[in-house]
């Protein structure tokens, strides 16, 4: 028992912590000189994005995975978090803590308002209401509220911002008590270069915290109530329990997660643009959660990582790169192969994502996590010998419901 977790969960948490700490190695598997270096993703921006969108998706999963309420409006909270953080940078200090705290508070307040209105309905009507709210927030940020949001151009730092808490010698970039978030240390091992970035570890610390809180919520009586909402809301009503306070709490918590993600995004890259509130971003987090596995703990993070990796790495494989890869083929064939593949890379990365999403939904409705589980089961079976390997008893028992952390 550690931090109020049982043994299995503690082991799970430790694995997550280790994975997070060693991300700079895990995402940079290829040597700089190898032709596969194209697929390296271990640079600060991408690593931090995975952590940030991981937080976003973990929070979204508390609402969607547990209560089944599908919100398309979470982009609004992400955006509000970013704006709040940048305003703190402009007015108070470039230290990231006040910014992140205000981001969480502001998005929590907005979530309270939007949730209070939207949760009067459920199912598709709830989804549409949240979508409408987010679209409204986007329009407001894009033009109506330009004095606050700086409209299309986005809110950014300027040299003559007041920053009342910062002295004359203070750093000019978002920092952690003087340690600037864009500082990096590099480790060179032979041909490998690994990047350790202050900002990434800052985001990673929050991601671990977010993960831990989510783990506790999943295991808590409160989490059980949320699951009850998903399982059968009517039955819950008949037993005399009102689901509203529970769903509203879940909505606000997931809104605050989104605000935290927004604040961290602003800390990594001090600019808040209205696009962050567009419904496509709200849709993206839905896809992340479902792709990874809704209702599981690890799924949303996996989904977020997969999508961000595809978006940043696949979109850069342009025709020139392909021509280089397939240069060994005869010219005509080379052009044909490149033409074919080019539709799935470069600007066509979204097509690859779409195909992958379809395959996952068709064949692994539980998302990537289910895929991993299946492989693990297969492997376990094989190790126990024979393909009918399960001991006879196993076949006559109801299937064990999988541990939610797996």
């Amino acid at each position, binding site marked *: 028992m550690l931090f109020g977790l049982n043994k299995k969960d503690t082991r799970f948490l430790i694995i997550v912590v280790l994975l997070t700490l060693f991300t700079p190695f895990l995402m940079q598997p290829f040597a700089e000189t190898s032709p596969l270096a194209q697929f390296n993703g271990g640079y600060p921006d991408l690593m931090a994005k995975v952590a940030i969108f991981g937080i976003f998706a973990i929070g979204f999963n508390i609402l969607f995975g547990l209560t089944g309420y599908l919100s398309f409006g979470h982009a609004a909270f992400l955006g509000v978090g970013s704006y709040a953080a940048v305003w703190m940078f402009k007015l108070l200090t470039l230290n990231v803590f006040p910014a992140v705290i205000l981001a969480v508070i502001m998005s929590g307040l907005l979530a309270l308002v939007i949730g209070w209105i939207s949760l009067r309905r459920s199912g598709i009507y709830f989804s549409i209401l949240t979508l409408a709210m987010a679209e409204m927030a986007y329009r407001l940020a*894009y033009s109506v509220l330009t004095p606050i949001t700086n409209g*299309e*151009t986005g809110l*950014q730092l300027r040299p003559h911002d007041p920053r009342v808490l910062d002295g004359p010698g203070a750093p000019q970039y978002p920092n952690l008590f003087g340690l600037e978030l864009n500082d990096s240390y*590099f480790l060179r091992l032979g041909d490998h270069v690994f990047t350790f970035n202050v900002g990434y570890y800052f985001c990673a610390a929050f991601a671990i915290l977010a993960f831990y809180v989510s783990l506790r919520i999943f295991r808590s009586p409160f989490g059980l109530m949320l699951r009850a909402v998903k399982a059968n809301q009517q039955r819950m009503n008949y037993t005399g329990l009102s689901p509203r306070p529970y769903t509203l709490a879940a909505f606000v918590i997931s809104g605050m997660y989104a605000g935290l993600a927004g604040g961290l995004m602003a800390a990594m890259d001090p600019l808040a643009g209205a696009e962050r509130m567009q419904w496509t971003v709200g849709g993206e987090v839905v896809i992340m959660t479902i792709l990874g596995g809704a209702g599981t703990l690890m799924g949303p993070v996996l989904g977020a990582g997969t999508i961000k990796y595809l978006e940043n790495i696949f979109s850069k494989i342009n025709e020139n790169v392909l021509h*280089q890869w397939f240069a060994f083929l005869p010219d005509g064939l*080379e052009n044909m192969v490149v033409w074919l593949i080019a539709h799935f890379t470069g600007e066509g990365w979204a097509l690859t994502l779409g195909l992958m999403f379809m395959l996952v939904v068709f064949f692994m409705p539980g998302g990537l996590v289910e895929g991993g589980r299946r492989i693990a089961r297969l492997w376990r079976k094989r190790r126990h010998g024979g393909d009918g390997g399960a001991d006879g008893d196993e076949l006559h028992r109801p299937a064990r419901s999988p541990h939610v952390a797996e």
Partner: protein
Amino acid sequence: MSRSRFTRRGVLKSGAVAGAGVALPTIFTAGSASAFTNEPTGATVTFGFNVPQSGPYADEGMDELRAQQLAVEHINGEGDGGMLNTFKSALDGSGVLGKKVVYVTGDTQTKSDAARASAKSMIEKDGAIMINGGSSSGVAVAVQSLCQEAGIIFMAGLTHSNDTTGKDRKANGFRHFFNAYMSGAALAPVLAKAYGTDRRAYHLTADYNWGWTQEESIRAATEALGWETVETVRTPLSTTDFSSYIAPVLNSGADVLILNHYGGNMVNSINQAVQFGLRDKVVNGKNFEIVVPLYSELMAEGAGEAIKGVYGSMNWNWQLDNPGTKAFVKSFGEKYGRPPSNSAHTCYVQTLLYADAVARAGSFNPCAVVEALEDFEFDGMGNGPTLYRGADHQCFKDVLVMKGNENPTNQFDILEIVELTPRAQVEYAPDHPMFAGGDLGKCNSGA
């Protein structure tokens, strides 16, 4: 076979082989390893071309990319050299400072966030030394400030808002494209000549930063002529049906409609205005007219018949008659089978200007490059004698006033050049009220 050699992170690659040996692990910071961000140490130097490859301006982005590829070829001494034959440069066709130019590309999606993410990955992962491209002012401003923070030079692509070199100007950012103020200053005299000085104008303006600065600029320029502004109406960017905005124009007593729209917005609004019969109306005893202050070839193609006889302005057009334009149009046409657009031209020129500035400075250090570009005067790039003003990093050159061709002979001459407004007429002070509030700051080399 393969069209160009393409390496990632030539910097670290060669550094790793030369510097650290094979086995010894070393820890270092960015500052200690090089004198400035992404200092090229290998045989190549990497440019980052950040253009919209998806979203509303994808066509413009593809055209920019074509021009950028062409520029890289010419710098590396391949192809016919294009404008390097007409522009007196320090480049000798062997790359830049003896290093062959390679490039990486990214998709801005015409969204500030996506554009910054792809610029960041070019800088952090691929070791790009310069970022060029883009097709919207919001993106240009966002990427420009990112480059300032990272210590990279930003050579803006198509961006027309006054803010890019006005209140959002940055020491590491340079704009070759013209701006809304220049459009107003160039258009106004032509409009006065064609339509008289006692017109009543009605503005429909795309409701975001660029639209507002253009409305402000055009309004100021036309009011100085004696025109009256009847009404300015903001239309949301996502509008596709403008009929509810156009109907009130008929009863407003206005006799000119000014469309501060770009891209798809403009194609829809002008077509609907023409369908409403605006151009057949006679108001106040004068023919009703429509003006589109910022034109692009791709927009003109989309608008079709509706733009015949409509005035607008452009940064450059392939029909110009000067050696630089001819050389560029020839090599672009031979390679891609079509004339370049004005956004393609600006990206091509910006890439060459950057390479030339490095060659003249003798260093890739951003601060040396900034110094080389500031107050640089050049010619032979298709716009006549041009100045890169040091005070705000804006290029000053002649501006083209265009008109929809009444009798186009093919899909590429839908627009015709009416007048070449001389540079002196579009110049303004760096602290002009429409550009005030900006601060270049100090150049950042990332060291």
